[in-house]
């Protein structure tokens, strides 16, 4: 720090000290006596007990809300047989039984063949006899005839 800067800082500190000293004098003049502070009786301002009515009402509202939100779940958990794990088991069972509605898209026609060892001589896949009328049809002929014009 340069000499001038140090001087400025000290000036500032001195001015601050003066300002605080004035403040201190004024506040000390306004200070109540020690005995008055220790022995004073306080109105039920902040230190007093909270108003029971207001607090009780707030607690009751909170309790009702809690029961309304958590009541049904709590009832299931506290079943008469005391088995608090039953809800968990039930949830697990539900999740394993669930099947996706698009599961059938993953099924392959041959999938059935691999489910077990087929007996000798038993057909695994149904053999549909070929339709002789199919041969020679165009693609258009496969479509349905909405008007019923085809004979």
């Amino acid at each position, binding site marked *: 720090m340069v000499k001038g800067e140090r001087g400025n800082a000290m000036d500032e500190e001195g001015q601050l000290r003066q*300002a605080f000293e004035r403040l201190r004098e004024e506040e*000390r003049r*306004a*200070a109540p006596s*020690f005995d008055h502070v220790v022995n004073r009786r306080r109105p039920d*301002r*902040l*230190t007093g007990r909270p108003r029971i009515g207001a607090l009780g009402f707030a607690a009751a*509202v909170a309790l009702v809300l809690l029961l309304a939100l958590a009541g049904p779940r709590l009832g299931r958990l506290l079943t008469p047989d005391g088995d608090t794990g039953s809800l968990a088991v039930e949830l697990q069972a539900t999740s394993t039984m669930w099947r996706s509605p698009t599961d059938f898209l993953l099924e392959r026609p041959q999938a059935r063949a691999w489910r077990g060892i087929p007996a000798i001589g038993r057909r695994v896949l149904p053999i549909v006899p070929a339709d002789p009328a199919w041969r020679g049809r165009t693609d258009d002929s496969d479509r349905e005839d909405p008007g019923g014009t085809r004979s």
Partner: protein
Amino acid sequence: METRSQARNELETELTRHHQASFGWALSCCQGDEAEAADVLQDAYLKLLDGRARFEGRSSLRTFLFGVIRRTAQERRRKRRLRRAAAWAAGGDSRIGEDPSQAILRSVESARVATALGRLSSRQRQVLHLVFYQDMTIEEAATVMGTSVGTARTHYERGKKRLRTMLGPDEPRW
């Protein structure tokens, strides 16, 4: 039994000796609310006189006393907030305990300093008050505030800078 009452009397004498400084500190902790400062001071004195806060001589009595006052003010602030929240939840008057207290009559210059101090953060205000108003060292201030010396020093430097900016550099007389 006699020694007990003797000790209490000695403590009361010491507290009386520091009373005016303690009131100034309580005012600073209560942001200038005189009635609240008196309540805080009474609670702190009773804690000491009843033995709920025990001075064990690890610091000076003044440092210890100021620490008790600071914590008491903090506890009361917290309780007041809870009480307001409860009153608000119950649909009542959430301004419980808000009493437009009669401010101390101050000169214009002191009022200006007090207003500027009120705009500082509580830590900055506290450290500046302890150093400039109570003539404590930064180390003592740190003990009262329950912080490290480094933290107290940082608050001191920043607070001083902000106070200077708020009071204006062109006016030499604050």
